[in-house]
């Protein structure tokens, strides 16, 4: 079950390899996209029918199968044409870069033209188509062919009048081709209610491919469907395809399912403030980002910043402009401080502009595919996808975008789409209804307030990251985009000068508060000083008392000394004996003890 986790293309390839081992091999057609939906190409050694109405590209399919087989896969091929001469055929496909004459000369291709003129032929008695077999065999053996194109086998039915013989011979032909192991493409006109006019699909049951060319709103879209492919898994849907100067391209993007590898790497949005809103890192690499908003809300600027950031990292970026020409974009980008010129010159930025109405949706898609194939960019910007809406129906655009997003994700390309929301429309609904495909959705909106219109930005969703829920005011400065936290208060969201006014009011209020505090502080200081002064006074008083106290004790001491001295004087004057003196001492010490 490890199989499950691998992309379907790899699984198909693995299955095919398994098939090849047990006998059901595939012959790659080299037709862009077809080998992908058929899981490797046409059944090897078997016959496939390619049917469809006139001009739907049957012959083209067969020829590309032959030419690419001969040129790219080393399998020479035989072309049996019933409708066009080799000269006509050679001329017809020369414009596609297929040089049939060269391949014929190199013995890689054998052209045989079967001309049927019913008026020239009379039938009498029994016959068979051995001549066809002889010619085919001769052609196959001459160049060792592995591939055969019979274009259009059904022409036989107009050349001969006996349908019973024809049917048995056609059946024999298919059996013969199979026995010889020739991978064959038979083209057939689509019948009324049947796949082929002559019911050829009854004889060939290995692989039936239906081509179709439908006109919708005056735009033609070719579609391809594998009706049947015995013994092989294949995409069952209708796949749009194109015939252009490189042959057929089938766009099988939707077959790929949701298996693309994802990346944890982050890439900057180009706007530092926006990065900050997305965990400080920006978008996931390989994710698809939608920038939607009303006219003039700054979608292109956001996209441009992303593109420039990609170039700054040294990555290639494809910028598909569906509204503005390259020169116009360069000029406008300069006004917000983005200089694209050097990146274009370095080949990192590839700006391509065309009108949405220039061609059908499939062609748009193919154009983008091709540019991506050629330039191999890491980032793609499509600006805006809304333009496509005017050129086609909603469903077509949606299907195209689904496939585009799938394709980009498959290739790990980070994509930014811009989408213009019409005034009055629900902002959170894109007209293209692709929001579910999108990983990150950045919404730009205008807020009208007090006579001005200001831009706001918020991240509506961003899968897999903790993005900011804040509404930011979006400023386009000459140094790029800046996002300011918008003023959100009880009075609502304020932007622009209203925000400035509100901020001024806030400031005044703050100043007021500050002043009050300052005043209180001063009061307190004053009180503190008063308190300190009082303390000082008390201390001074205390000190004065202490000094007085000191003086008092000094006076007392002096007094005692005087008493002593007086007594000594008195004793000396009385001539007291030492014995008397001895008697006198306790009396003296008693007196001294009383005065300390």
């Amino acid at each position, binding site marked *: 079950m490890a199989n499950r986790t691998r992309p379907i293309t790899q699984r198909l390839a693995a299955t095919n390899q398994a098939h090849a081992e047990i006998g059901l091999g595939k012959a790659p057609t080299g037709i862009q996209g077809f080998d992908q939906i058929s899981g490797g190409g046409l059944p090897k050694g078997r016959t496939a029918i390619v049917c469809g109405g006139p001009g739907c590209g049957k012959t083209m399919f067969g020829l590309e199968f032959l030419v690419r087989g001969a040129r790219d896969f080393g399998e020479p091929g035989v072309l049996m044409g019933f409708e066009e001469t080799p000269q006509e055929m050679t001329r017809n496909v020369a414009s596609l870069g297929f040089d049939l004459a060269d391949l014929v000369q190199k013995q890689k291709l054998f052209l045989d033209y*079967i001309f049927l003129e019913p008026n*020239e032929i*009379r*039938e*009498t008695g029994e*016959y068979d*188509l*051995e001549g066809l077999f*002889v010619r085919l065999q001769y052609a196959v053996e001459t160049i060792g062919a592995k591939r055969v194109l019979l274009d259009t086998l059904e022409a036989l039915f107009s050349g001969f009048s006996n349908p019973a013989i024809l049917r048995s011979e056609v059946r024999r032909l298919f059996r013969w081709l199979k026995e010889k192991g020739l991978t064959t493409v038979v083209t057939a006109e689509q019948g009324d209610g049947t796949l082929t006019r002559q019911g050829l699909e009854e004889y060939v049951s290995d692989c039936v491919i239906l081509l179709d060319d439908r006109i919708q709103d005056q735009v033609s879209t070719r579609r391809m469907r594998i009706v049947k492919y015995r013994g092989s898994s294949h995409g069952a849907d209708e796949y749009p395809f194109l015939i252009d100067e490189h042959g057929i391209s089938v766009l099988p993007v939707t077959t790929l399912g949701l298996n693309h590898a994802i990346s944890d790497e982050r890439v900057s949005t180009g706007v530092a403030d926006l990065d900050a809103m997305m965990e400080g890192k920006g978008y996931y690499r390989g994710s698809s980002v939608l920038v939607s908003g009303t006219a003039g809300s700054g979608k292109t600027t956001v996209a441009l910043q992303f593109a420039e950031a990609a170039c700054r990292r040294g990555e290639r970026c494809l910028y598909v402009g569906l509204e503005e020409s390259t020169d116009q974009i360069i000029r406008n980008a300069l006004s917000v401080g983005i200089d694209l010129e050097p990146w274009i010159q370095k080949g990192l930025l590839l700006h391509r502009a065309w009108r949405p109405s220039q061609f059908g949706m499939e062609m748009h898609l193919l154009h983008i595919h091709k540019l991506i194939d050629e330039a191999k960019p890491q980032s793609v910007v499509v600006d805006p996808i809304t333009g496509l809406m005017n050129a086609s129906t909603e469903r077509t655009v949606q299907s195209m975008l689904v496939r585009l997003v799938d394709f980009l994700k498959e290739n790990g390309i980070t994509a930014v789409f811009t989408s213009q929301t019409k005034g009055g429309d629900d902002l959170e609904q894109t007209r293209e209804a692709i929001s579910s495909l999108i990983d990150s959705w950045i919404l730009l909106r205008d807020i009208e307030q007090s006579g001005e219109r200001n831009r706001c930005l918020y991240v509506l969703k961003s899968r897999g990251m903790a993005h900011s829920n804040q509404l930011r005011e979006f400023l386009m400065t000459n140094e790029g985009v800046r996002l300011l936290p918008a003023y959100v208060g009880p009075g609502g969201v304020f932007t622009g000068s209203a925000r400035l006014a509100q901020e001024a009011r806030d400031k005044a209020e703050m100043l007021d508060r500050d002043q009050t505090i300052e005043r209180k502080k001063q009061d307190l200081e004053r009180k503190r000083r008063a308190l300190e002064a009082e303390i000082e006074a008390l201390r001074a008083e205390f000190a004065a008392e202490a000094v007085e106290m000191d003086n008092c004790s000094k006076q007392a001491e002096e007094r005692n000394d005087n008493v002593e001295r007086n007594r000594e004087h008195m004793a000396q004057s009385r001539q007291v004996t030492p014995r008397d003196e001895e008697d006198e001492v306790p009396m003296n010490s008693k007196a001294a003890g009383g005065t300390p």
Partner: protein
Amino acid sequence: MSRRTKKAKPSKESGQADVIELRLYIAGQTPRSLKAMANLKRICGNFLDGKYRIEVIDLVRQPQLAQGDQILAIPTLVRRLPPPIRKIIGDLSNVERVLVGLDLRDAPDSARMARV
């Protein structure tokens, strides 16, 4: 067509100028090929009075020759001369149709013949 038929008839008497050159394409000695050869010889012997040339080409041996005369069905009889080229496919079992196909006889009712 009728003009050519009238011209062909007097040629039976006059010289070698209007020899009919026929080429029969077969693929191997199949019963059908042999039958076609026998039928052709009989018709020529009965109606062409010696003024004909038959070349039998076996495509099994010379497959490259099939392309030139645009041969698909086997057997195919091609009248190469006089122009224009005529082709008759099948085992030539219907003498009447062979003669008409070779411009040797007017189609009695071409509409009916085509259907048969």
